[in-house]
C-alpha cells in the first residue's frame, strides 16, 4: 500500500487481511468481537444491532427490549405511507431496491417517519419525566421561523393528529414493553399517557411509544431515527413483493379521485 493512501477511521470495524490477498478479509471485528469467528452462532440479531450502534454488549433485558421494538416496527401495515410507497414500486415492476428506497424516503419524515422519532427523542432529552416540562414543550411547539430542508412538524411528535382514542396496538405495544425491566421511560409514559393526551388533545401514537423505548435504551436522536427506518423495512419489502405478484390492475389508482380546480393566478 502506498504510504500516502488516505484511511477510513472507525471505532466500529476492523479487518485483518488474508495473507494471499490484501483486499480479502480473514477476520472482521465489530467493536473488538470477531464477527465470524466468535459472535456467529452465539449472538442474536437484536444483540448484534445493539452492539453495532452502542459499542457494547446488550444485557438480556436490553436485547429483549430491542427485539420487542423490532417486532413492533417490522411491519407498519400496508396502509402506512412508507409501505404504500414500496407497493407502488412493486405494482409497476420496479426494482427491489426502488421499493426499499421508496419506503425509506416516505418513512423518513415528520409524520410517522424517522424525523418524528428524532424530534420526539429531542423532546425526551428536554422534558424527561416531568409533566410540566412536557406541558411547556407542547405549548411552545410552534414554527421556528427558519426555512430548512425539513418543514416544521405539524402535530405533537409522538401523538396521532387524526386519532380519537389511543389505538389498541399502541396500548398493546406499550404494555408489552412495560413488562421489560429496561422500561423506565416507557413505564412513566404508561402512567402519564392520559395526562399527556389531554395536553395535546390527541392520542399517543406508535412513534411516541418507540421514541420512549429508544430513549430507554439511551439511543441518541440520530441513532433512533435511523434504526426506526431500518426496522420498518421488512413489511415494506414483503408487501411490495406481494403487490408485484398481484399487479397494477389489483391496486388502487384512485381513478375518480382528483378534483381539478381553477388555478389562482399568482
Amino acid at each position, binding site marked *: 500500500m502506498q504510504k500516502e493512501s488516505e484511511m477510513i*477511521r472507525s471505532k466500529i470495524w*476492523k479487518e485483518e487481511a488474508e495473507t494471499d490477498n*490484501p483486499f480479502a478479509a480473514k477476520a472482521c471485528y465489530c467493536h473488538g468481537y470477531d464477527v465470524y469467528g466468535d459472535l456467529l452462532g452465539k449472538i442474536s440479531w437484536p444483540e448484534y444491532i445493539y452492539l453495532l450502534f452502542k459499542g457494547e*454488549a446488550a444485557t438480556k*433485558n436490553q436485547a429483549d427490549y430491542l427485539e420487542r421494538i423490532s417486532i413492533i416496527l417490522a411491519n407498519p401495515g400496508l396502509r402506512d405511507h412508507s409501505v404504500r410507497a414500496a407497493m407502488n414500486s412493486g405494482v409497476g415492476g420496479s*426494482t427491489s431496491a426502488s421499493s426499499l428506497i421508496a419506503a425509506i424516503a416516505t418513512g423518513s419524515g415528520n409524520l410517522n417517519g424517522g424525523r418524528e422519532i428524532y424530534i420526539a427523542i429531542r423532546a425526551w432529552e428536554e422534558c424527561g419525566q416531568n409533566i410540566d416540562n412536557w406541558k411547556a414543550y407542547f405549548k411552545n411547539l410552534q414554527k421556528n421561523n427558519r*426555512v430548512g*430542508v425539513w418543514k416544521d412538524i405539524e402535530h405533537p411528535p409522538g401523538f396521532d393528529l387524526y386519532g*380519537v382514542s389511543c389505538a389498541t396496538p399502541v396500548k398493546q405495544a406499550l404494555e408489552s414493553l412495560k413488562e421489560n425491566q429496561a422500561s423506565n421511560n416507557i413505564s412513566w409514559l404508561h402512567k402519564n399517557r392520559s395526562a399527556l393526551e389531554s395536553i395535546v388533545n390527541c392520542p399517543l401514537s406508535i412513534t411516541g411509544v418507540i421514541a420512549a423505548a429508544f430513549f430507554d435504551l439511551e439511543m441518541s436522536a440520530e441513532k433512533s431515527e435511523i434504526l426506526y427506518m431500518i426496522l420498518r423495512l421488512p413489511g415494506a419489502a414483503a408487501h411490495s413483493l406481494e403487490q408485484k405478484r398481484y399487479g397494477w390492475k389489483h391496486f388502487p389508482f384512485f381513478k375518480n379521485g382528483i378534483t*381539478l380546480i381553477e388555478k389562482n393566478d399568482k
Partner: protein
Amino acid sequence: MINNKSQLDKLFEYEKQWVTSLGKFFPEEKVVFHGKNLFKDLKDMHWLHLLLFGITGRFFEKNQIKLFESMWVICASYPDPRIWVNRVAALAGTARSTGIVGVGAATSVFEASIYGGGPIIGSIDFIIKLKEKLESGSDVETVIKEELKKSRGIAGYGRPIANEDERLKPILELAENLNMHTGEHVKLAFLVEEKLKIIQGPWALKMNIAALIGALAADQNLTANEFYHFMSLSSSVGIVSCFVDANNKPEGAFFPLRCERIKYEGVNKRKWDTERGKN
C-alpha cells in the same frame, strides 16, 4: 379527555378527493398542468422552464431561464466521481446496480448540510430575511453577528475542500451579460462577505456559490422553498455521467479498498461472554 373528532372528520373529507389546481391526466385526451394544456400551450417550453412552472405556477422570461439554466450547467454537476454525490453514483455503477436506482440514491445525498440542499435553501433564506430585517431598521453587522452566534456560520459562506469558489466568476459574468447582477440581494450577498472580513479577520468565511445563486434567484423573486426545489435535481448531470463512467469499466474497479485502509480506533479484541448481563 381527548376531543378530537373534528380532525377525524377532516380525514373522512380527505378520503374522498384530492383537490388540486396542479393538474390532471385525462387518458387518451390531454394533460392539464397549472390550468394549461401540456400538448398545446406548453409543448415548446424549455425543460427547465417547465420545471420552474411546475414548482411555482408562474411563467418566466427567456433571460431568467438562461440565468437559472446556467446555475445547473456551471454550479452543481462536475464530472468528478470523488465528489460525494457523484461517488455514490460511481459506487452504484461499479457495483452493477441499476442506473435510475444509483442516480436516485445519489440525488438524495445531494441534500447535505455542508454542500447541496442545506446551503442552497439556507443561503437564500438568510439573504431574503437579511433584506427584510434591514428594511425594518436592523443593522447589517448586528444581523450577521446574531446569525453567526445562532448557527455558528452563515449558509453560503465558507467551503469544504477548497477556499475560493471557482464558480463565482463565470456565474457573475453570465449574470452581467444578462444584466441581472445588480439586484438588491446580490449586493447584499457581497456586503455580507465584506462584513465577515471585518468581523472574522484573516480567517473570514468567503462567499461560495450557494450565496450568489441564492441571491440571484431571490432577485428574480423566487422564494427560498421554490429555489430549493428548483435546485433539487441540479447535480443530476454529474451523477448520471459518473454512474455511466463507472458502469462502463470493469466491475469493482472504482477505488477498491484493501483491509489496511481501515484505521481502527476502537476497543481491543475481546471475547463474547454468552453469560453476560443477567438483566
